């Protein structure tokens, strides 16, 4: 059977209580309206005081050694409040890659710092919009003077401005892929981009620099499997976040329609509106079940199966998040498309999140290849 353990339930309730207070609509707007890269106070609490970044990092590197379910719980809740923090990039994008591809030394150093809440991290994948963002590499690495020369541009890197370290996959002369870790002062050019979804910052990264041999943190090249392993967690975290944002948009909407009176009754009493909200609950139930079912499976056996379920969860979550956001606007009526009310924040996040790590068609193709057992259409 599928249910949270008492510990997981406790993590969930405490995180929910905390975020309700600290990641309010006002807090989001302080970031969105000032063009800040993130909510620094909130990030400080989450990473240093609450230790959320330590959750899934193995104990040997200073983490709590918990699993994918705990991370999914926190991703769901940060998603519900559109928390403006580099939590997904650090915990779901960078940490799993360090774990699957990093050398022992790199794990001690970087996973240790992430677990301690002292480091925000991200990954400069060449193209984060495709299902296999590691398939192409935008940066070239050439051995020079005992170190490496890195050259290349990555158009969009999530949370790059706030990241204390950016992991850069780079192609070596022999065609294999290496992984570099660049701290802020490594000499890279970071150009913040103006974004529609201002709750998550994006910047361009340009590299024309030389780094020491120590900056290279993989053991002996990074293979497709290591990337896939890391990306499975990135997808799970994103699906959970999308699920949360769906619930957030629905909650905002339910609160509004329960107050709004027309024709002498609350608009929540109209069956047309009840049914649309109920339909969202149907789809939330479906998506939540798949997200947490897959998360639980990831910790046990059948990881291949779980990865497919996570691909499916992304499809459901992307469809649903957008629908919940557009329903939020529609059911708010006129105020739904104002800056003052919150639906637009969910709407913009929905479009931006759906574009990450592969569109629904790519995810479905991947599942179909497995269901038909033919490796996909050629």
């Amino acid at each position: 059977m599928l249910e949270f353990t008492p510990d997981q339930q406790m993590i969930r309730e405490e995180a929910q209580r905390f975020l309700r207070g600290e990641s309010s609509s006002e807090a989001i707007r302080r970031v969105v309206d000032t063009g800040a890269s993130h909510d620094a106070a909130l990030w400080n609490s989450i990473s240093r005081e609450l230790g959320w970044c330590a959750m899934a990092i193995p104990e040997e590197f200073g983490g709590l050694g918990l699993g994918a379910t705990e991370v999914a719980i926190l991703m769901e809740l940060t998603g519900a409040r559109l928390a403006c923090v580099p939590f997904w990039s650090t915990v779901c994008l960078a940490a799993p890659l360090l774990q699957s591809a990093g050398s022992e030394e790199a794990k001690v150093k970087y996973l240790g710092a992430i677990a301690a809440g002292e480091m925000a991290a991200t990954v400069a994948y060449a193209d984060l919009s495709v299902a296999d963002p590691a398939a192409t590499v935008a940066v070239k690495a050439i051995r020079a003077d005992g170190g490496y020369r890195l050259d290349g541009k990555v158009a969009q890197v999530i949370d790059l401005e706030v990241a204390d370290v950016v992991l850069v996959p780079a192609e070596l002369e022999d065609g294999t892929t290496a992984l570099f870790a660049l701290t802020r002062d490594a000499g890279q050019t970071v150009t913040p981009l103006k974004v529609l979804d201002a709750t998550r910052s994006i910047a361009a990264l340009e590299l024309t620099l030389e780094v020491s041999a120590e900056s290279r943190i993989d053991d002996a090249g990074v293979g497709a499997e290591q990337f896939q392993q890391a990306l499975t967690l990135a997808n799970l975290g994103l699906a959970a976040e999308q699920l949360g944002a769906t619930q957030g948009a629905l909650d905002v909407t339910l609160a509004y329609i329960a107050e709004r009176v027309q024709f002498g009754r609350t608009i929540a009493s109209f069956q047309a509106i009840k049914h649309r909200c109920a339909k969202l609950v149907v789809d939330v139930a479906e998506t939540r079940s798949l997200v947490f079912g897959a998360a639980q499976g990831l910790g046990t056996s059948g990881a291949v199966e779980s990865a497919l379920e996570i691909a499916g969860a992304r499809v459901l979550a992307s469809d649903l998040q957008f629908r919940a956001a557009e329903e939020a606007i529609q059911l708010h009526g006129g105020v739904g498309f104002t800056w003052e009310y919150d639906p637009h924040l969910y709407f913009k996040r929905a479009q931006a999140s759906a574009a990450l790590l592969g569109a629904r068609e790519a995810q479905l193709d991947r599942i179909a290849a497995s269901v038909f057992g033919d490796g996909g259409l050629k």
Partner: protein
Amino acid sequence: MSELNAFRTEVREWMAGHLTGKFAALKYRGGSGEGDALPELRKEWERELAAGRWTCPGWPAEHGGRGLSVAEQVVFQEEYSRAGGPGRMGHIGEGLMGPTLIAFGTEEQKRRFLPGIRSGTEFWAQGYSEPSAGSDFGNIKTRAKLDPISGDWIVSGQKVWTSLAHLSDWIFVVARCEEGSVGRNGLIFLLMPLAQPGVDIHPIKQIGGGAEFNSVFFDNARAKADDVLGQPGDGWKIAMALLGFERGISTLGQQMSFQQELDLIVEIAKENGSDRSPAIRQRVAYAWTGLRAMRYLAMRVLSDDQSAETRREALTYKYQWSNWHRDLGRLAMDVLKMDANIVADDPRRERLQQMFLFARADTIYGGTNEIQLNIIAEQGLGMPREPRGKL
């Protein structure tokens, strides 16, 4: 976990050893849309199950069950379906009537009725819906009048959509026993033999040609004084409790047959080239995803989780599976292309055609889509209730 695996092996081996010989003809038969198929052989199969103590395995041992845990019952349902076990003729007795008798029956009633259900010798039908009491179940018009001399109840009226009434021995009937009462008040829950004067059963031919439902007419038919479950006036309470007993354990077995249908669709697509269509592939992948999600939702509903989310989302299960299944029917036909329209002696195609047609009922019986959405909105989200009309 290993105990559960051992139990799984036990069920698997039993099914392999018994669903053979003459019973092999029953494999994958009698499912939704053809609940009336091969009735005599399927009744015999019920007795075969009973001999192996596989009828009513979830009932407490004192009533002749095995007292299986929820997890074990799920395993049984899964293995039963995996083996191609036929649709259960005894389902209403085992899953609905039995647990209700155990909860509300007198010792005498339990002694009289439970053994027939358990042994696969007495079959039950459910007398709930009426022509004017479908979604509005409280609008029951069938009347029960007390015969002051015998103490028996004299029943007149009509029930409809009564599954397998023409193949059953007994029917439980919710009727109005208080003159002038309305809605959920004044109802009585009666146990009635179907073979008696004054009971007339008319099968209803369905969209797919089969007839598993019936209209059942009562014209001064009789329920014995001893065959009232609970007290007169308790009808609504017992009727609702009965619906609550299922708890969805059989749904994981149902999902196993959904999986078989999906596998069949994939198999046919690979044979006839539909698997080369990107759109078909995506729909198959989407169906696969939905089925996975449904499985985890069922596992949440069956767990001990009492959180607000899970209680609310449990309300969506009926909507979830019925709409998924309806879409699967359309997908099956699109995969079959023009062959979908041709009736031929091909068991695979026949199964999908029946599924395509009968799945239209999935979103109607047991609470229509529209009623399900009302329930989710009102009970799950606390939104205002629909007003009652005055007609």
